[in-house]
């Protein structure tokens, strides 16, 4: 052994290489620039030595011998030769074997041109085969799910897809079946590979055995152009966007060590179809007559010019400001835009119009101070071996798919202990060290007991519905590892209860964080898991009431920003809930919607409806005519992902670049340009001509981003994490309390599912049909009390509404609780939820 335990010295092709202890030979060689051909080896999965392609001469002092380099760890003094005659002959032989049964249908295979088997046969393989017998035959592609076709004839049995399904996604629904020369990958009959992550198997398949339905026969790899970019989801997954003839055809995950490790969810991967949707907005629209003539009171939206649309929007804003003051203008949304877009809109709203009634979240997230005012974690910190993750958020598997994969890996492989404080079981519950599934609205009591160590159980020997012994065990486990990093994943676990409950729980954890972090330990940090693409960027760029770009408040940063901007609002404005309330009362004259759909998304649909019908002028900037944009008086067509340049901020505060590869449809423009033009109409010249210039201004005026150049962001593969924040978390003054439960009702939990009625999913052909049907899930104990067959329609009654839906038993739902998806396409849970009540109680009536 070497004296220095951290380095193992080996020789690869005569060149000295310093490897890490325990590193596989193939990985060490690759880092040293020596590529060893392989099919089954994948750096993010366990080695299995399945394909034998990576066998090379390895000499550990007993003479060179052929060994699979993906299964042999480096050792001191090891000599590796990847170019020896023996190695070459072995590679040649392995390829001849792999090609025995592989069909020669490369001309009609999607993988042709980017196929490792093709490439390596060219580089290392035999020119011809001695195999004259019949190859094995299977039915040509069979669907394993809605996205993925499996061609078993092409499969070389590398075990990558099956390992991915088992090890990474945790959905082992495809396996090797049969044996010997009949071995094949397949699903269980009639049980598809229904994983949220199935598209990754297509990306890692080293042959054309797995192909993606949305990409099948669409392009040849050599026809594609590509750019590296950031997918606009809160994780900021790194992707390669590939396009041909000005059309996006594929997203591939990029292995970013800090973020997504190369994985993508199916929802994100296949959402490229929406960019080319026929329903994309192409030209500005204004109100007009059915015959297409402009008419401010018209019943239709008619096409118009940018000049006309901008003038009309500016006139409405001017009139509103002159009539009722700047506070009569409000801006909702913006979470789907780039940082540059958000900054420009924020400047327009706060400096030019002078209103602070700006909110990127539709009352379904958390206040900005809970996101920006707490110590911020990174994903890698959450995944630190031996650390603890406290999940106080909706199911990451449904909302942040790649975060789920990272956490799952950390819990399974790196000994991270997971403690859940959620109102129902999540996709990670079976891996959680402690699942504290509390009654809706009682998270704070559980959090207090967990970190306070004060296990004071209620009358039933429980805390918030969790047996106090469970909480005590979790508290002991947490205390046991208090010197390791603790990361809280923070979000809104249920939209059927007031956000105050979550904030109370956050307050408990934050208090503990202050105590713990003072002791020189890694302490507690928070990772905000909010909904909507660039919502973290929106908060950083000041698209929230009382906030200014650069994580500062009107009170703190207002004076210094006023020097650059000219002016800032004097007093904090209202959030979405109050904006819509004011609108319903006729106090908002102009409502600007930035990709926001309050009718579809705001938890109180009735109030959204009332608000939209009262507002004088609605201005929408959007990709699609969503229900709210359809009510607008002026609609600007906006450029979407891959159609504009900019930067994105993920849940860590990590800023990465997004690049453009196609032109926007019609005359659609990037939002920063729309905001700049509108400002010009209002008499303000921003002097901004490109997203880079916008970023320059952000780096000049936003305190947390000061001096951060676009070149610095671009230069790093993983972007730059912005850590500074001058915002402090303000704990709620008084804690909310949930009313006592009664024996007849079930308390509702409602959270989003991955496939929903959202704009993106519904405009992506491959995804639109996947949203699950609405069902009410209750604990088997409660289900037996209802006394119906599983899946029977029952009448569900709350104090504000009732609806019919099937009821099923689900052991993941605690007793006394009922769970119902927030965003089903068929049934709208908002019809049951009283938005002003702390919690929602339901009764079930059989018919």
């Amino acid at each position, binding site marked *: 052994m070497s004296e220095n335990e951290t380095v193992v010295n080996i020789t690869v092709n005569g060149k000295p290489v310093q490897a890490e202890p325990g590193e596989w030979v193939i990985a060490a060689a690759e880092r040293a620039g020596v590529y060893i051909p392989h099919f089954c080896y994948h750096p993010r999965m366990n080695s299995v030595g399945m394909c034998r392609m990576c066998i090379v001469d390895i000499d550990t002092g007993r003479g060179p011998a052929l060994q699979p380099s993906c299964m042999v760890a480096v050792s001191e003094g090891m000599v590796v030769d990847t170019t020896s005659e023996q190695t070459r002959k072995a590679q040649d032989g392995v390829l001849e074997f792999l090609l025995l049964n592989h069909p020669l249908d490369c001309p009609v295979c999607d993988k042709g041109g980017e196929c490792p088997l093709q490439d390596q046969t060219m580089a290392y393989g035999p020119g011809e085969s001695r195999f004259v017998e019949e190859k094995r035959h299977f039915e040509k592609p069979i669907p394993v799910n809605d996205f993925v076709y499996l061609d078993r004839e092409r499969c070389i049995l590398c075990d990558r897809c099956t390992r991915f399904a088992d090890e990474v996604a945790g*959905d*082992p*629904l*495809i*396996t*090797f*079946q*049969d*044996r010997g020369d009949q071995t094949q990958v*397949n*699903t*269980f*009959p009639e*049980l598809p590979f229904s994983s949220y992550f199935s598209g990754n198997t297509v990306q890692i398949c080293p042959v054309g055995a797995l192909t993606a339905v949305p990409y099948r026969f669409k392009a040849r790899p050599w026809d594609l152009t590509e750019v590296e970019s950031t997918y606009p989801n809160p994780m900021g997954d790194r992707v390669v966007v590939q396009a041909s003839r000005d059309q996006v055809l594929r997203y591939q995950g990029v292995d970013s060590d800090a973020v997504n490790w190369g994985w993508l969810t199916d929802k994100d991967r296949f959402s490229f179809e929406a960019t080319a949707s026929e329903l994309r907005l192409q030209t500005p629209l204004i109100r007009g007559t059915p015959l297409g003539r402009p008419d401010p009171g018209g019943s239709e939206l008619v096409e118009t010019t940018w000049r006309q649309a901008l003038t009309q929007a500016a006139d409405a804003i001017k009139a509103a400001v002159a009539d009722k003051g700047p506070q009569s203008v409000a801006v909702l949304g913006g979470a789907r835009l780039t940082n540059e877009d958000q900054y420009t809109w924020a400047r327009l709203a706060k400096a030019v119009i002078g209103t602070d009634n700006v909110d990127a979240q539709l009352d379904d997230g958390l206040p900005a101070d809970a996101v920006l005012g707490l110590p911020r974690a990174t994903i890698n910190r959450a995944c630190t071996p031996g650390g603890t993750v406290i999940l106080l958020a909706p199911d990451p598997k449904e909302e942040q798919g790649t975060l789920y994969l990272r956490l799952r890996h950390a819990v399974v492989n790196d000994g991270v202990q997971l403690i859940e404080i959620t109102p129902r079981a999540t996709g990670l519950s079976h891996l959680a060290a402690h699942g504290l599934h509390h009654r809706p609205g009682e998270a704070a009591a559980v959090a207090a007991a967990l970190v306070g160590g004060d296990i004071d159980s209620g009358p039933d020997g429980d805390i918030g519905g969790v047996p106090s012994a469970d909480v005590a065990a979790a508290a002991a486990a947490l205390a046991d590892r208090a010197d390791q990093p603790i990361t809280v994943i923070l979000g809104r676990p249920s939209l059927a209860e007031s956000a105050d409950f979550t904030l109370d729980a956050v307050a408990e954890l934050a208090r503990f964080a202050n105590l713990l972090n003072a002791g020189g330990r890694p302490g507690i940090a928070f990772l905000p898991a909010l909904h909507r693409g660039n919502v973290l960027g929106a908060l950083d760029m000041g698209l929230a009431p009382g906030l200014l770009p650069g994580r500062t408040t009107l009170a703190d940063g207002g004076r210094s920003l006023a020097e650059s901007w000219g002016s800032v609002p004097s007093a904090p404005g209202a959030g979405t809930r109050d904006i819509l309330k004011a609108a319903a009362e006729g106090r908002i004259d102009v409502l600007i919607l930035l990709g926001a759909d309050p009718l579809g998304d705001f938890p109180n649909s009735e109030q959204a409806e009332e608000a939209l019908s009262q507002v004088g002028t609605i201005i929408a900037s959007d990709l699609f005519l969503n229900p709210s944009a359809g009510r607008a008086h002026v609609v600007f067509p906006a450029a979407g992902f891959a159609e504009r340049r900019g930067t994105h901020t993920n849940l860590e505060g990590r800023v990465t670049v997004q690049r453009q590869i196609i032109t926007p449809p019609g005359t659609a423009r990037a939002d920063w340009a729309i905001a700049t033009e509108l400002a010009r109409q209002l008499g303000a010249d921003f002097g901004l001509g490109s997203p880079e210039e916008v970023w320059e201004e952000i780096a000049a005026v936003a305190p947390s981003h000061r001096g951060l150049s676009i070149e610095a962001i671009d230069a790093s593969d993983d972007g730059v994490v912005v850590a500074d924040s001058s915002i402090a978390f303000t704990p709620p003054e008084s804690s909310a309390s949930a009313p006592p439960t009664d024996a007849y009702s079930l308390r509702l939990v409602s959270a989003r599912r991955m496939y929903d009625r959202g704009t993106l999913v519904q405009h992506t052909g491959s995804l639109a049909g996947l949203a699950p049907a609405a069902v009410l899930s209750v604990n088997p104990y409660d289900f037996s009390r209802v006394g119906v067959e599983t899946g029977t329609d029952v009448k569900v009654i709350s104090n504000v509404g009732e609806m019919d839906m099937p009821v099923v038993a689900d052991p993941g739902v605690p007793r006394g609780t009922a769970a119902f998806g927030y965003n089903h396409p068929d049934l709208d849970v908002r019809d049951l939820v009283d938005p002003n009540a702390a919690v929602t109680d339901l009764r079930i009536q059989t018919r």
Partner: protein
Amino acid sequence: MARLNANNLTVAQEILSRYPVPRSALIPLLHLAQEQDGYVAEDAMAHIAELVGVTPAEVMGTCSFYEMLKREPVGQYMVNICNGISCHLLGSSDLIHHAEATLGVRPGGTTDDGKITLEAVECIAACTEAPCLQVNYRYRNQVTADDFDQLVDDLRAGTAGVAPHGQLAKVRQHIGDDRRAGVSPPDGQGEPAWMARNPSDNGDGS
């Protein structure tokens, strides 16, 4: 022909209790399913998946790996005639032809009465007794055509003394409650109770 029946479910629970990790019971439970139906039905695989906590696809992966686990209905008696080299030299091909003519099926087929499935198999490791065959994995040695006819008659009459396909033993083994491992998670599990039964046994054979 489906999921495990109530009786077998009790047996399955006992089998599960023998293993600290439930999925270790997968193959014994597949045998149990085969004993119940004569083959392993898809519904049974799904049921076993529930019992041991894996996906049906994983059960299928294991089940399809093993030749003795049949995934299609077979006859009450599997007659496997060896076609290995010793048996071949001593006339197993003739025996197989004779069997085909007698039973009216090709290897792999099942007689119309559902009694007998004929299979030609590779060496079954009884070369000294060639030509040999197995009936539900019980050996018959140095089999002649007459022996075969007699065997078929006995099987059809139910007098051959061979248990139906799927039944592995005449007496089911039971273990005492104190020897059950109990179901515990794979990591950090305690020792099964029986390990500590004999304090003098320190595990090194002494």
